[in-house]
């Protein structure tokens, strides 16, 4: 099976999954015993029958469900997600404004998590049952056990309140955001050549990213450790050593590469969950990202926003899985043939 065929097959499966999610979410929103027009107009607005009729017709809610579904899918395919009944802005614009903030945070959190997790995982495996392993284990358990909002408040207390490092938000008060190019402050400020803004954004992203990454760090570290330990016991490692290969080559090329299958699977899903699940962290750090938007949409029964954000998260997970699948083939070519 060629790599291209493998990837195409995965993409096709991904599209089917996304379509399934789209349909499922549409059905669920229809099953909720709540009139979206009432949500939109409020109790006062509902008393104006002409207004109710107008909004119902505008949203095609007077049509049969199958017709509404076709209308919805058609709009989605054209990239039209409608207007949010809460923010009143086009949902696509809302997402475009908030998505980069979440992606930037998630990437940073992911990097922090991996920078800590993989080395500590390797160290724990290599120095198994030594103090460094015990220390790493304790840190991992603490990281996994603490809820993100608690970490967030704790970090704010220590790093912001006590040490005065950086508070919530994406920039310090009085600091003007960089010109919108990518929506990533770290990149946009560099493009604009505003290094003060860059360092300020860097300071501000550190704490939420650490909060978001800390739980993942513990889990990934333990996963890397156990996977590496298992591989280090394999015969081909002994063979490699007997061949007189350098220990560095044995661990990084022979052992780690084979041990990474499980952590990479987790990391792929982890990145997806960071993007879709940064709700609490974004709330604690007043981070204007997608997580906050999702919460608001759910509380407001904002159908267009719920449908769009769910779809975006489904796409994120599907793409994450696709990337993981492709990474498999690079790490372990046998996967392609399987």
């Amino acid at each position, binding site marked *: 099976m060629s790599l291209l065929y493998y990837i195409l097959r995965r993409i096709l499966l991904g599209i089917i999954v996304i379509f399934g999610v789209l349909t499922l979410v549409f059905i669920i929103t229809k099953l*909720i*015993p*709540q009139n979206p027009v*009432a949500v*939109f107009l*409020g*109790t*006062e*607005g509902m*008393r104006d029958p*002409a*207004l109710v009729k*107008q*909004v119902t017709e*505008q*949203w095609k809610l007077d049509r049969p469900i199958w017709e509404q579904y076709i209308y919805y899918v058609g709009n989605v395919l054209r990239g039209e997600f409608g*207007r949010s*009944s*809460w*923010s*009143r*802005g086009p949902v696509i614009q809302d997402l475009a404004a908030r998505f980069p903030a979440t992606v930037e945070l998630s990437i940073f959190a992911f990097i922090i998590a991996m920078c800590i997790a993989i080395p500590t995982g390797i*160290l724990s495996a*290599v*120095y*198994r049952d*030594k103090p460094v392993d015990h220390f790493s284990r304790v840190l991992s358990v603490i990281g996994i056990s603490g809820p993100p909002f608690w970490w967030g*408040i704790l970090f*704010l*207390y220590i790093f*912001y*309140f*006590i040490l*005065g*490092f*950086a*508070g*919530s*938000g994406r920039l*310090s*008060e*009085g*600091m003007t*955001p960089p010109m919108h190019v990518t929506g990533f402050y770290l990149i946009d400020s560099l493009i604009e050549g505003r290094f*003060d803004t860059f360092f300020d954004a*860097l300071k501000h992203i550190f704490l939420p990213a650490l909060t978001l990454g800390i739980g993942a760090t513990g889990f990934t570290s333990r996963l890397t450790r156990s996977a590496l330990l298992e591989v280090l016991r394999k015969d081909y490692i002994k063979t490699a050593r007997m061949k007189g290969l*350098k*220990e*560095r080559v*044995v*661990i*990084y090329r022979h052992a780690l590469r084979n041990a990474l299958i499980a952590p990479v699977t987790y990391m792929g899903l982890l990145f997806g969950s960071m993007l879709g699940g940064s709700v609490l962290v974004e*709330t*604690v*750090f*007043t981070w204007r990202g997608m997580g*906050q938007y999702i919460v*608001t949409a759910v*509380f407001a*029964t904002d159908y267009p926003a719920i449908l769009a954000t769910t779809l975006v998260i489904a796409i994120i997970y599907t793409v994450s899985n696709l990337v993981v699948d492709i990474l498999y083939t690079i790490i372990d070519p046998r996967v392609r043939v399987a």
Partner: protein
Amino acid sequence: MSSRTYFKKAITKVQAAIIAIIIIASIGAGIYLATLPPPTATVTQTVPTTVPTTTVVTTTVPTTTVVTTTVPTTTVVTTTPTTTTSVTDTLVVSVIGAHWANVKFGNDPSNDGAKATYIPLIYETLFTYDPISLQKGELKIIPWLAESYSVSNDQLTWTIKIRKGIKFHSGNPLTADDVIYSFNRYWFADWGKIATYLVMARLKTMPNYIVGFEKIDDYTVQIKLNKTIPFFTTYLADTLWSIVDSKLVKAHEKTLPEYGNANDYGYTFLNYEFGDAGTGPYKVKKVEVTVRYEFERFEDYWGGPPELKLSKPYFKYIVYIPVNEDADGRFKLLRGDVHVVSDFLADTVKALSKYPEVKTFMGPSPLGFGLWMHTVTGPLKDWRVRKAIKMALNYTELNLVAGAGGSVTAQGFFLPGMPTWEENARYFKDAQIAEANKLLDEAGYPVQSDGWRFHINLYLRPEPRWGLDFTKYGLLVKAQLAKVKIDAVPVVLQVSEYYAHVYNPAESMMWIQPFDTLPMPDTPMYLCTYWGQQPWFGYNKTTQPEIADKIDLRWKLYNDMINAPDDATRMKIFHEIEKIDLEYGPYVTIAAALWHVGYNAKLKNFFWSPRQLFPAIFYVTWS
């Protein structure tokens, strides 16, 4: 070979050196960044020469609590705040969980829900709250942009004179044309065509009451009604009645192709583009929607009614930033990055009182929590059961424990700070268990074999309002009702599901609901709509034949109130209606919320009102 040697050999010396350099550089950069002074927009400025003449901050209303901070008696681990000691010209304000931080509330004053926040700093109304009364914790409406007014004997024709010499932020003078345009824009524009374009649906619940608006001369307008609107001057203080710069807004009206080329009446300009068409003491400087809102002092501001002798606002800039988390707001306030934080949890206000660098304010607010009951079916159909529930409650305990002292008792609709609010505030004594049990027995609800008289759902919403948690009140109500063997089952639901139950009178249930009340400017509208047109959750003669005479009396009093010759008489009649409702009706107010505000101790003459910083902004200074 030991595992240690494996790993040592796994990395070269060069790699180890690179890693060490990266770690050392990161630590160094971290220390450097941590020691950098926070970028603030503080510059020195001379203290204004005009000192406010009326700066009474002591409270006279018994329940108004101004909590002044004292030096902590216990050792509290704190750090020295980084608050600059120089005089600041920028006031940074934050409201925890502010709704404007999550939605695209722009700058159109006719958005319902914009009445708080920064809108009153930019736009003004013909009538507004008296700032001097507000400092005493009292809510009183006075003419503002209006100079004087007269009303016909039938109360259907209101003639209002507008002050001369007032300028909009654009430089255009305020005239009767602007008033007429603003009112017509809100009430008679065809908003329905662009309903889904608006941040909130236009609540055109009163057009039947309004005949029209007429210009008498350049500075006189006439409002003609065909039905009396009680407390009409209070109503005119609603931001919905804000006066916009007609020339500017007209110039920015445009058609919306998405809505069949309907006119947007300048909505795009005002709301989505954050246009500024106000006369207020501050004008829009810079807005990053949902992130940061900056306003600059309007140097040509007319100065407010001359008789009030208001100072020029001290702060050149006001910045609103959102904060989601209570703890974050506390940290920001203590570090001096934010000067005023509102909507703290009541416990936080108590905790903050230990810090000398901040002060706290708990004053009367227009928000109450009501315990409501459906009256169509089930035990609550019987007025004796409803009254027994009201009698069984311990209101003092509810406010001290569930409200953590952040709310006070008020059983009627009028809340502390409002004229004549005491009338029905303690209609029921606390926890009259024996009397309640007797009533329940009389009503035919004896204790059953399971130990309860009956079971009933109590619906609550999960999100706190103004730092007060519904669920805490709900759980305590449950505990208190258990003493009379009523099993109230708290059910916490998100807003859409919650209202699905609330607006189904056939379901026998109770719920705790927040309400805004007199003299909030939208109350006259409620009086005309909820009170005047809707059966109250089944509270009518059909479902309540045994108290038909009381209900008849209630509606007679309601009509008397509407047609009363003045608002003072209306208030008296209102309390009579309230007495009937407390005795037989479907509600009792269980808590009157207080504002929970923390502010920097360097702020002098600070107070917080239903309009938040307006009109406190004329008095507040920085020392």
